[in-house]
């Protein structure tokens, strides 16, 4: 077990966004969290990595780092690509004095090579395309060899080829570092190409749990509505 979420509850003001959800993700497994916009998918990720506190429940993670790839990359725009990737190595308390400059340069180069972007160390985020920024944020996330990786809509807003590239990285990272991964997405290709299991959120609750193949079978009203992207069904879009 690498991530276990038990009876998680989170409310903002009077609205309960996450309402008593539980799930597990094992090492080397990719769990996709799907659902319509506003169903609380990204909130789950933020609760797991501690960016926002939960009201009730429990999040248990194995020892080690948690990394997150943000929806809009969240690269530090005042730092170049090399400094972005090396950020944790240079600034984190337990790593700050661990590596020499040449070692950091080597690690940065390796990570960039891994995401197919060798030689762009001195470029700034504003000089990169959306897909390249996303890949740099991948490199930044894995620099500390995390055992849990959270992806917040990793393929949103990307062209189909860039999406495929990102999906391939998610799968290859799963094999390479055996991390437990959670991918928040509503893109079908990302679900089918990366996920081992899928949970669907609606109104703060899990309304479906199964494999991508089971999702595609559309055996429940929820899966049917999601896969066919229909406005008719049990899930109502929020006004």
């Amino acid at each position, binding site marked *: 077990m690498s991530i276990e979420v038990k009876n998680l509850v989170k409310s903002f003001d009077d609205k309960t966004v996450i309402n008593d959800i539980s799930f597990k993700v094992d090492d080397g497994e990719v769990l996709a969290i799907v659902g319509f916009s506003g169903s609380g998918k990204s909130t789950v990720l933020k609760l797991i*990595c501690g*960016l926002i506190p939960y009201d009730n429940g429990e999040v248990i993670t194995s020892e080690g780092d948690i990394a997150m790839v943000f929806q809009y990359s*969240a690269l530090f725009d005042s730092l170049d690509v090399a400094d972005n990737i090396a950020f*944790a190595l240079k600034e*984190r308390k337990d790593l700050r004095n661990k590596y020499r400059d040449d070692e950091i340069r080597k690690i940065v180069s390796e990570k960039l090579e891994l995401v197919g972007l060798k030689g762009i160390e001195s470029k700034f985020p504003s000089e990169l395309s959306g897909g390249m920024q996303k890949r740099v944020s991948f490199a930044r996330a894995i620099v500390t060899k995390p055992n849990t990786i959270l992806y917040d809509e990793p393929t949103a807003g990307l062209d189909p080829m860039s999406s495929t590239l990102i999906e391939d990285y998610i799968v290859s990272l799963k094999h390479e570092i055996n991390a437990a991964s959670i991918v928040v997405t509503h893109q079908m290709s990302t679900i089918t190409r990366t996920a081992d299991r899928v949970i669907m959120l609606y109104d703060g609750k899990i309304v479906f749990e199964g494999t991508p193949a089971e999702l595609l079978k559309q055996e429940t009203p929820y899966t049917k509505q999601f896969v066919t992207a229909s406005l008719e069904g049990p899930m109502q879009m929020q006004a």
Partner: protein
Amino acid sequence: MIVLQKYLKQSATYKIFSHLLVVLAGFLETLGQIAQLGFHTLKCVLKGEIDRKELITQCDRFGVSSLPITLSIVGMTSIIVASQVANEMVKQGGGNFVGMLMTILIVREVGSIMSGFAITSMIGSSLASELATMRVTEQVDAIKVLDVDPVRYLFVPRVLSGAIMMPFVVILASVVGVILGAVTSDMFAGLSYRAYFDSAGLGLFMKDLGVCLLKSIVFGAAIALISCTCGYHASGGAKGVGLATTKAVVWSFISVVVLDMVFAILFFF
């Protein structure tokens, strides 16, 4: 009863009171945030957790890039004050005290308070919008997820650079102010430079210089801390950045005046 409650809820008095309560709650919340982040920053500084490279970058931003506007504002204020004071004092036979009056005024008040305003408008607004943009684009979240203390990384170099550089800016601005006061007195009231500078040092004591330095350190740290705090707690998109910047400027202006008053009461009453 229900009708009365309904009427009260719709009445202008109720709306004004509820708005006042919201404003008061917001004021207290901001005060709490400034205190909390200020304490955290101080803790990091005392532990020596300072990024020297970033500190130098921020010192350059705080002290060097703000210098033209600060010198201009303090210099022009000194010209305005001297043009009003010198003529009248010479007419009343007090020409020999113009230099003393101008120096006391500039060293004790004009230099630090006008520099505070200039730094707020230039550096404070820039710090607030920078951190607010980082907040709304999830860069602050990224810092946290990478297990780096955002206060150590963002606040410490900025607040420390404010405390370090502000005294230099104020001293330089005050010197420029005193010199421009002499030039103005000569031009508007025909007061000789010699008469001006002979009296310039008469009313100035070490206490004045000490308080001026201490005040500028506190002003610099306060402006940077308030601006960073407002930016750090921004929310929403572009509108949130704008609101945070406005809030930072307003709070910094007020803090400069309030702190100046506290110094005046503590040291000159």
